[in-house]
């Protein structure tokens, strides 16, 4: 074998070995944005992905009474499930009351969570209108929006939650 052939064989062999080293199974099947959309539920603070629809506290009061009050109390006062209303000004006290109004930093979280997980015994059954409406009801009950204000994909991400400024992010550091 000439030196050239040896060199060529070496290159060929190295190439094969390299290909084997980076070969991965690639068994996942591609999926289109339209086909994955039913699973793409999450809504971040920028509101991207919020669905069409709307609702205000007025409609939300009815939804809340029918689907939420039996766990969260008629006025959102809690028991057996979390209290949702009130507690502003208590966080630094010995008996802090953490509610949507006193504690939650983003209004979009309310929509995201209600849509994915509420009501507890029938998650993912509320319509988009109902979800906007019940979010509006809880925000209005906390005095964060006006009772007549309509929540939709444009208005919800603009709601400024009063406790947001108290949050700070630890990662990538650590808390001492």
């Amino acid at each position, binding site marked *: 074998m000439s030196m050239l052939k040896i060199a060529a064989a070496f290159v060929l062999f190295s190439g094969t070995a390299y290909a084997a080293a980076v070969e991965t199974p690639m068994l996942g099947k591609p999926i289109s*944005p339209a086909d994955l959309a039913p699973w793409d539920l999450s809504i971040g603070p920028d509101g991207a992905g919020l669905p069409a629809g709307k609702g205000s506290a007025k409609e939300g009061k009815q939804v809340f009474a029918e689907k939420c009050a*039996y766990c969260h109390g008629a006025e959102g006062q809690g028991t057996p499930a979390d209290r949702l209303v009130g507690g502003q000004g208590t*966080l630094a006290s010995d008996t802090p009351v953490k509610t949507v109004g006193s504690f939650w930093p983003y209004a979009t979280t309310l929509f995201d969570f209600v849509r994915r997980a509420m009501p507890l015994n029938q998650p993912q059954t509320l319509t988009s209108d109902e979800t906007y409406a019940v979010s509006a009801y809880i925000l209005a009950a906390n005095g964060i929006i006006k009772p007549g204000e309509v929540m939709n994909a444009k208005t919800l991400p603009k709601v400024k939650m009063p406790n947001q400024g108290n949050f700070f992010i630890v990662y990538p550091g650590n808390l001492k």
Partner: protein
Amino acid sequence: MKKTGTSLEPAAGNGLLHRRLFLAGGVGAGLATLGGGAQAEPLAIPEWTKKPGAWFTAYGQPSKYEAKVGRGVIVEHNPLYESGPGSVRTPLQFLEGMITPNGLHFERSHNGIPDIDPEQHKLLIHGLVKRPLVFTMEDLARYPMTSRISFVECAGNSGALYAKDAAAGTAQALHGLLSCAEWTGVPLALLLDEAGVDPKAQWLLAEGADAASMSRSVPLAKAMDDALVCLYQNGERIRPSNGYPLRLLLPGYQGNMNVKWLHRIKLTTTPTMTKDETSKYSLLLNQGKVAQFKFQLDAKAVITKPSPGFQLKQQGFYEISGLAWSGNGKVAKVEVSADGGKTWALAALSEPVLSKALTRFRIPWHWTGQAAVLQARCTDDTGYTQPARDVLIAARGNRAAYHNNAITSWSIAANGEVKHVYA
């Protein structure tokens, strides 16, 4: 106590002995002073030796005599719900070694344990990727796998130690949202590479298929470092309560980030700010400040033997044994005190000592029959030592609820009763 060379010299106050007392050998003459007691009963042939034993079973169960070893009393669920959110705890005080048996692994669910058919379960990877991909369980089972022994600890574990008065409770009740298993699965980095990560992606959202659609934002750096998409727990398919058929493992990170029943990963530029990373699993500190995205569970040690529920029957020799761990690396050392933290002795660490895994520690102790306060404190290989409780409370206040890694104190009364106290 009599000295035999140096080995029976106390290693610290109130009767702590050298950790190598029983490892070094050659202390026979000294050991006689540790034991003592009455003459044994005459021996008879036991009944079970005189007849054939039972036949085999397809899936083994613990001895019927170990029925007390369980995840506590299962309380009735709230009558308003079918099942709903809840948790059960690992009976740390009845276990030894570093591995939690699968049937005793702690459980936390945010809306019950889903009944998932593995043939229909899928994992979707999408968002900031070149190719959104869907994997079946059959697909994932063909991937190259990695195994690692890792603890999982709920961020709410040991939360009772924030309370102003020391809560009564066993090691299980106070610290049992903690378990350790060998987890086997596919490195998440491999699946993300196949999907093609967009350079703009910095975070991902991991979501479960349960009725809470439990979801958490995870830094992409963690996903690419040591995250596993797990199919197996201690050699068998993951138990339904721990995420069957697929769960995320993020070694050292707060428990619920290890998303169970995993079915979706979405790559994003920023965190999604889900309910369970804003209103829950964040720490309310002094002056109303809130620490969010504290992920790693810092170093901690807990004495499991003796612990509340044990009754020391007589003075003399006891082995103090417990668990130590750190979400930041390996356990470097565990120190034990029998006098409420005045003096400390090094405990022996049982091999293997693994990063982000439970580590068993042991130290021999001679109880004189007088009141004692037992403590253990862990130092990890970053040099960090867990704090005394008053130090932690001074830094964070008592409203933080999560990530309590203060030193636990067990008091031993003169009558041998063991209780949780603040010391």
